[in-house]
């Protein structure tokens, strides 16, 4: 069967082909079960793993004599260290011989509100004030400022490097093709893998933490900037060129202004990515809220870690809303033409900045404005509340949750995992390639075949299959939630307003905060890992589906209503099919987010690749294996992304609504 044949077949035959593949798989599985399954014990290494470990040792031993380290990395480290220390001196650390930072709490609140007001609007400015004051009320002002300082520094450096690179990638196809796989790699490689080596290169301190954060935060800045530059209509650029603009003028006067709104989206994504690294960076001594979370985990102190997690969520929501508002404002300004009433705007800016300056001055000079007053201690209530809730849930819900766990594990996960892990590797190779051929064509099939072969070569075949099984089960659950809740809040604005902050919290609350409660509810099992992944990934899927449902033309819905369709019919026959593009996109994104949680899963009983990565981080001899496991996760991600992207392209072609 060739791709050409598959492509010419009418669409309805695809499901039959897939069923055929599945049937053949099961039949061959029964025949060859348990052969060529390539198992590897927990402490066992393949020669490849040993070699990777040795390679790491070589770097280790030559660090002091190698000129690249002596000059290049050391200066990079010095620069970043100085930069971060400077930002910390401004807002979070006693500095310049003073017992407090240069700018105290009142000044920080004033500055943040001023920025929100000038780039966003009054609503987000008020939100900013409320959010920042709540850090103090939770009793976490200093920790929050440490986190903010590190995040700001990492974001600024990411943007300083990422936006120019993104512009380059936007203008130059070859560079874009070159950089895209590197960015994919940076985003899917688990941080645990490179955390320990980073401290060898950049030492223990702000530089390592910042670089770790940047590796994860810079890809969206580059990607989205490139995308933004490419989006600028060709005609506009050509018009500019025909008027005799130089390439530089075209960039500065035509492309960048038109791309500005999308670039702001990139800034937003960069900030969110940086914030998601707060807890992980704390593993190498990054100061701030992440440390509070990790410390609390040592004593299983759910309340304290929830309190700190809440501060991270609040920070994420504030920064997200402010940058989103800034993006909308750029858009509005563009639509309205040149900035209107410049004088009035200038007076506003001047006044706002003056007030902020006064607040900064006060907080620099007076103790009451420098140190957050400690009397209003909301934190202890939050801590007690979270503790009580977690305790209650673990005591009273265990029977139910344990039943759910067993149902899904025995009913779905175990059979699926058995088929994957007990099949000979060549059978899985054949099945994956055939499936990719049917649903996505010959190129994707080739990519998948190479990926499966790489998994075999990495020596972690069986672990990869266990992780793949859990990943797919988690994605199914994510999509079930995504469609049900997405349709609900996509149709009901009031529900959306209530649910959306919960979704934001799910996305930004560090997993380390809810590890203990979910461990209490589900035990140290693969299912617990799946739950952690669902908590993190479902919000994205829900939001995308909801956006898709909203994008369905009202005319279509009204026509269906007029024709006497019931609500259920409208949803199932009109809205969901028309939002198909959004649903496949949600599946793709959901999958990426699930994969990002593989390592966290390794901390709660998932075993397999996640555990391999964690052990590589903790045991010297297992370093090579951990790295190989990280690579295996990247390979799994590449394979699954190739398939979902092909599905998206198909979905978009077929779907009448291409809104997403």
């Amino acid at each position: 069967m060739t791709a050409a044949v598959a492509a010419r077949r009418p669409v309805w035959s695809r499901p039959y082909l897939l069923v055929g593949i599945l049937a053949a798989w099961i039949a061959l599985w029964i025949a060859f079960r348990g052969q060529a399954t390539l198992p590897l014990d927990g402490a066992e290494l393949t020669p490849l793993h040993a070699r990777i470990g040795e390679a790491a040792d070589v770097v280790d031993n030559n660090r002091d004599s190698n000129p690249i380290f002596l000059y290049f990395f050391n200066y990079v480290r010095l620069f970043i260290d100085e930069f971060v220390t400077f930002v910390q001196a401004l807002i979070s650390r006693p500095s310049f011989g003073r017992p407090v930072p240069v700018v105290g709490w009142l000044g920080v609140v004033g500055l943040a509100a001023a920025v929100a007001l000038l780039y966003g609007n009054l609503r987000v400015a008020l939100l900013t004030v409320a959010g920042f004051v709540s850090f103090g009320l939770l009793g976490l002002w200093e920790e929050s400022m440490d986190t903010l300082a590190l995040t700001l520094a990492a974001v600024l450096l990411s943007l300083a490097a990422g936006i120019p690179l993104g512009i380059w990638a936007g203008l130059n196809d070859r560079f874009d093709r070159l950089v895209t796989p590197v960015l994919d790699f940076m985003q899917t490689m688990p941080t645990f893998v490179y955390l320990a080596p980073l401290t060898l290169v950049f030492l223990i301190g702000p530089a390592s933490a910042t670089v770790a954060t940047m590796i994860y935060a810079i890809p969206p800045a580059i990607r989205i900037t490139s995308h933004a530059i490419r989006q600028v209509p060709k005609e506009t650029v050509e018009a500019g060129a025909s008027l005799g603009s130089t390439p530089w003028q075209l960039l500065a006067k035509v492309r960048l202004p038109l791309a500005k709104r999308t670039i702001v989206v990139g800034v937003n994504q960069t900030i969110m990515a940086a914030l998601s690294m707060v807890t992980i960076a704390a593993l190498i001594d990054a100061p701030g809220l992440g440390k509070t979370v990790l410390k609390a985990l040592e004593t299983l102190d759910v309340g304290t870690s929830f309190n700190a997690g809440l501060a991270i969520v609040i920070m994420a929501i504030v920064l997200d809303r402010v940058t989103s508002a800034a993006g909308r404002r750029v858009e509005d300004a563009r639509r309205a033409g040149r900035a209107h009433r410049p004088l009035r705007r200038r007076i506003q800016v001047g006044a706002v900045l003056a007030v902020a300056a006064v607040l900064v001055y006060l907080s620099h000079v007076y103790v009451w404005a420098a140190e957050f007053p400690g009397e209003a201690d909301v934190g202890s209530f939050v801590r007690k509340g979270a503790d009580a809730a977690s305790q209650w849930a673990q005591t009273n819900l265990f029977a139910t949750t344990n039943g759910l766990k067993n149902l899904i594990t025995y009913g779905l996960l175990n059979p699926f995992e058995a088929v994957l892990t007990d099949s000979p590797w060549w059978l899985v190779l054949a099945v994956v390639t055939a499936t990719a051929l049917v649903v996505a064509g010959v190129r994707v099939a080739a990519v998948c075949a190479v990926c499966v072969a790489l998994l075999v070569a990495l020596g972690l075949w069986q672990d990869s299959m266990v992780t793949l099984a859990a990943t797919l089960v988690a994605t199914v659950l994510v999509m079930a939630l995504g469609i049900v809740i997405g349709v609900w809040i996509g149709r009901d604005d009031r529900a959306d307003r209530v649910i959306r902050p919960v979704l934001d919290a799910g996305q930004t609350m560090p997993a380390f905060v809810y590890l203990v409660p979910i461990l209490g509810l589900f035990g140290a099992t693969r299912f617990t890992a799946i739950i952690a992944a669902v908590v993190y990934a479902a919000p994205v899927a829900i939001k995308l589906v909801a956006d898709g449902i909203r994008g369905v033309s009202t005319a279509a819905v009204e026509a269906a209503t007029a024709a006497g369709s019931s609500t259920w019919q409208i949803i199932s026959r009109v809205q969901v099919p028309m939002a198909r593009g959004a649903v496949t996109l949600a599946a793709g994104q959901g999958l990426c987010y699930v994969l990002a949680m593989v390592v966290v899963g390794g901390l709660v009983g998932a075993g397999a690749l996640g555990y391999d990565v964690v052990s590589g981080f903790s045991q010297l001899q297992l370093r090579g294996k951990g790295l190989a496991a990280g690579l295996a996760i990247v390979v799994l991600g590449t394979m699954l992304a190739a398939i979902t992207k092909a599905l998206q392209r198909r979905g978009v072609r077929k779907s009448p609504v291409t809104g997403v």
Partner: protein
Amino acid sequence: MRVSRIARPRTAVLVAAVGLLASACAGAKVGESPSASGTADPAKKACGAVNLAINPWVGYEANAAVIAYVAEKELGCQVTKKDLKEEVAWQGFATGEVDAIVENWGHDDLKKKYIEQQQVAVETGSTGNKGVIGWYVPPWMAEKYPDITDWKNLDKYADLFKSSESGGKGQLLDGDPSFVTNDAALVKNLKLNYKVVYAGSEAALITGFRQAEAQKKPMIGYFYEPQWFLAEVKLVKVNLPAYTEGCDADAAKVACDYPPYELDKIVSKKFADSGSPAYQLVKNFTWTNDDQNLVAKYISEDKMSAEDAAKKWVEANPDKVKAWLPTG
């Protein structure tokens, strides 16, 4: 500043802020209060900076808290605590960013690499704490099935420990991969009908035992002493075939219990050669498991900060502290 001309909602914010400014230009100034000046006693400046690694468990933190407290109060050192996992902390000896690790569990591989090969670290003797590693069951099980503490009877109870993860065998739960475990080899070599399930973190292990005791659910898993959780639930150790010198020489063939661990302290070569009084303190530091458990309890159960917990213990044990201080 005239802002009243701008008739927009923003005015409200400005007015509020100006009002705040007008009413609040009073109060203590930064740098005026006595607490603002440095706290170190100028007479004891000889110590300088000390970088203590803080490995992520409470017992370690108890050691570090007490050492840091004494170093700061008695010797006038500036102690910087760095929260690091073990492997990264050892790397810190090589990069010069860690001076001391004050509770080390074995780690012969790291000793070989950093002490023998790179020669950037040296051993400075025992902390006085005895580490025990082994298989534990919750107390209710030891009470109900008294013979479960003998490994020979484990197979009899394997069915109790079945779980969704153990594929029909009894589940033996392992925790944080930082800890050396021979459990897979042990199960194999003792021919037990069990499967090792890797929970992946200490939190998973403790939550498991906590739930097992509270809900009277069967559980057997890898655990260790001294550990703060044992004060909450007194887990009972299962006796594996007794440890004899060298019975664990071949990791693949281990069929005996874990050796008793003499927990020790490791410092960087640089720090040892510096002649800092803090080095003498670290070298002399030794206390009992009970001492550590007490401070660990202050931190974990009573939720005291590490500093307060150390202060409380130091003030109650002046004689022990005195013995650690450098002589002369």
